[in-house]
């Protein structure tokens, strides 16, 4: 291809991407972005995660209403991390073994994974986003514990921080003539996923700290409400991202802006990262 032809093709791509960008902007600005319904179980579980007065029977009943979810939960609780001496064959038994809170987390994760984090044309990106969500949730809990922040909220913030990713990819699939390259798709995600996720969060009436996290996780210093939850999730995501990419190095984690904002010293980071094996096992089990 001649230089002129290459330049022309590049201008075409640029114009094409600009068109997609305008389209996505309009969808979000006009509130016309197609928002999925919250999975029924997720809605129930979320509504209870800040009001922990439900009983085990009700939780088991909720999960059992969704056959694929129930089998998914049973598969996870029978994974090497959670399984005890005997196989778990019933949801009530699973709750008795692992506890309400853990089963809630598993059910919420599984229902979001099955219903939201699906997008055939960009599945590798969605899969990676889901892995990051899960890993962020688990690390956010540990960060919260280390900083004496709320552990339960931290999990939710970490899990849902990038819920806008599949939305934007879904919109791209509807707008673009063919799937964008990974790099171009990532550019769109960087630009739109927080806004799309925030729309979804408000539509789903997610807890306020979760909405603040979705909106500001990339710029935690700008969060004026629930700043603590946002910065904890930012740190959880950064550690989770690092873990997914390779070995966790305390010296690198210590340099993160959110870790410094949370006032975690190198000794604290070393203690924090000692949870890496537990997190890794939980990841493997919950991704089962």
């Amino acid at each position, binding site marked *: 291809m001649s230089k002129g032809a290459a330049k022309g093709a590049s201008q075409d791509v640029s114009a094409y991407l600009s068109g997609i960008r305008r389209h996505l902007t309009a969808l979000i600005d006009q509130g016309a972005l197609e928002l999925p319904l919250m999975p029924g179980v997720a809605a129930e579980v979320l509504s209870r995660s*800040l*009001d*922990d*007065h439900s*009983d*085990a029977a009700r939780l088991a009943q909720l999960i059992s209403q969704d056959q694929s979810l129930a089998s998914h939960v049973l598969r996870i609780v029978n994974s090497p991390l959670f399984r005890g001496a005997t196989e778990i064959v019933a949801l009530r038994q699973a*709750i*008795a*073994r*692992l*506890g*309400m*809170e*853990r089963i809630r987390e598993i059910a919420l994760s599984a229902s979001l994974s099955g219903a939201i984090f699906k997008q055939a044309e960009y599945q590798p990106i969605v899969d990676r986003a889901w892995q990051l969500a899960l890993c962020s949730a688990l690390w956010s*809990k540990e960060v*919260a*514990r280390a900083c*004496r*922040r*709320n*552990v*339960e*909220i931290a999990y939710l913030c970490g899990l849902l921080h990038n819920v806008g990713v599949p939305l934007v990819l879904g919109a791209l699939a509807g707008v673009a003539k063919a799937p964008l390259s990974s790099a171009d798709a990532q550019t769109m995600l960087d630009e739109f996923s927080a806004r799309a996720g925030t729309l979804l969060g408000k539509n789903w009436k997610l807890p*306020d700290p979760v909405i603040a996290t979705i909106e500001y996780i990339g710029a935690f210093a700008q969060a004026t409400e629930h700043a603590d939850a946002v910065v904890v999730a930012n740190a959880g995501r950064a550690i989770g991202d690092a873990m997914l990419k390779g070995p966790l190095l305390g*010296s690198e984690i*210590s*340099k993160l802006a959110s*870790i*410094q*904002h949370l*006032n*975690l*010293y*190198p*000794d604290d980071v070393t203690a924090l990262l000692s949870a890496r094996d537990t997190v890794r096992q939980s990841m493997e089990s919950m991704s089962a």
Partner: protein
Amino acid sequence: MNRFDVVVIGSGPAGQKAAVGAAKAGRRVAVIEQSRNIGGACVHFGTIPSKSLRERAVERRKFADRLAALGMPSEAPITDVAGLIGEMSDVIAAHDVYMAEQLHRNGITIVRGRASFLDAHRLRVTHTDGSTEILGGRNFVIATGSKPRMPANVAVDHETIFDSDSILSLAYLPESMVVLGGGVIATEYASIFAVLGVRVTMIDRFPTPLGFLEPELVGAFLQAFAGYGGTFIGEADVESVVFDGVSAVVTRLAGGREVRSEKALCALGRRSLLDGLDVDKAGIAVDARELIPVNEHHQTMTRHIYAAGDVIGPPSLASASMEQGRRVACHLAGIDPGAQGEWLPTGIYAVPELASVGLTEAKTRERFGSAWVGFARFDEVARGHISAAQNGLLKMVASPDRIVRGVHVVGENATEMVHIAQMGLIGEATIDTYVENVFNFPTFAESYRVAALAVAAQLDAGRSTGAKNVA
């Protein structure tokens, strides 16, 4: 190496007062603070947050009770913890700004980091990014405070089982809570959560909570606590506290009894915070309780190094720590700090408030041969009815020479009211002082006259309080 006249480690009540006092005396001062914010645990985990939460809890409870009295009972329980905590955070933020400005105004250098002694004249400060710097000082003040004590049999996870530093991270009010301990922190949080509608069970190894207070005050507290749905289990040995992995924290007591609750708070005291400070490298040895021994000037065994606040042990009150910090600054500057005040008031911000100053009835009897005691119940003073705060009492203790030796108050404004008695103690006021002088009407302070009249009546009749006047 950066050199200062005075290096203060910790910016809590003791450190702050020492730093400001030294700076005002012309010293070049640095304060090392390991947290992001100034003020220490007092501002961020202890004194200010719990008192702020208490005020808001009481406000909401009063509002709900008032609605009920007007025939408009509120169905909704008090559950907006986020709102309560949010309001509390505003108070903390305002206090933080005020204190930081005070340090800046006095030209004090604030160094963020963790300190450790290299020797008796140098400190290494490690920052959060791992970088370090060395600070030198002519004098040092160790005011690093304390942190919650963590018994091995209590599995604190900050998610289901909290300590007093993490309890305020709660996002919702649990249905039930076990509070371990019977001291000040345990009593405050137990009553605050009970007022908010949480079913609270306090468990302690002593027969009653707050055993250092007069039994009448403790009785009034327990009565109010029970009224809010709280339960106190005394003389209990806790064997273990664990989350059962399902939905409950299980507190196992010796003898096989179990108490199940949704959450638990471990408030079994605090220990000095000296982790990583390496005081031994500065020639300082801690005692068996891990406290730093000091002389009357707050000098440690390495004389140019001072210690103040929780690191030197009781009374571990913010008010006392501030005074210790001031005294350190005075000694550093060669200024006479004045006589050490003999009468230190104690304030417990439970619901209801409790406060005490001076001698108890038993101590008065022990020291003076007999004790003359008068009570004033808040339902006997007009202000109690006006403020719908009849559940309170004031106990006045006098010696046979009519001098008031101690005053103990439970009820609304107790922590403020007790200062009248403190001034009286300093001036050795007699019961006649309280009888013959006029207080505003209607006020809770009127209780002083009521109690003093009761003592006067007994003295004039020549009888003290039954067997209590027997030496």
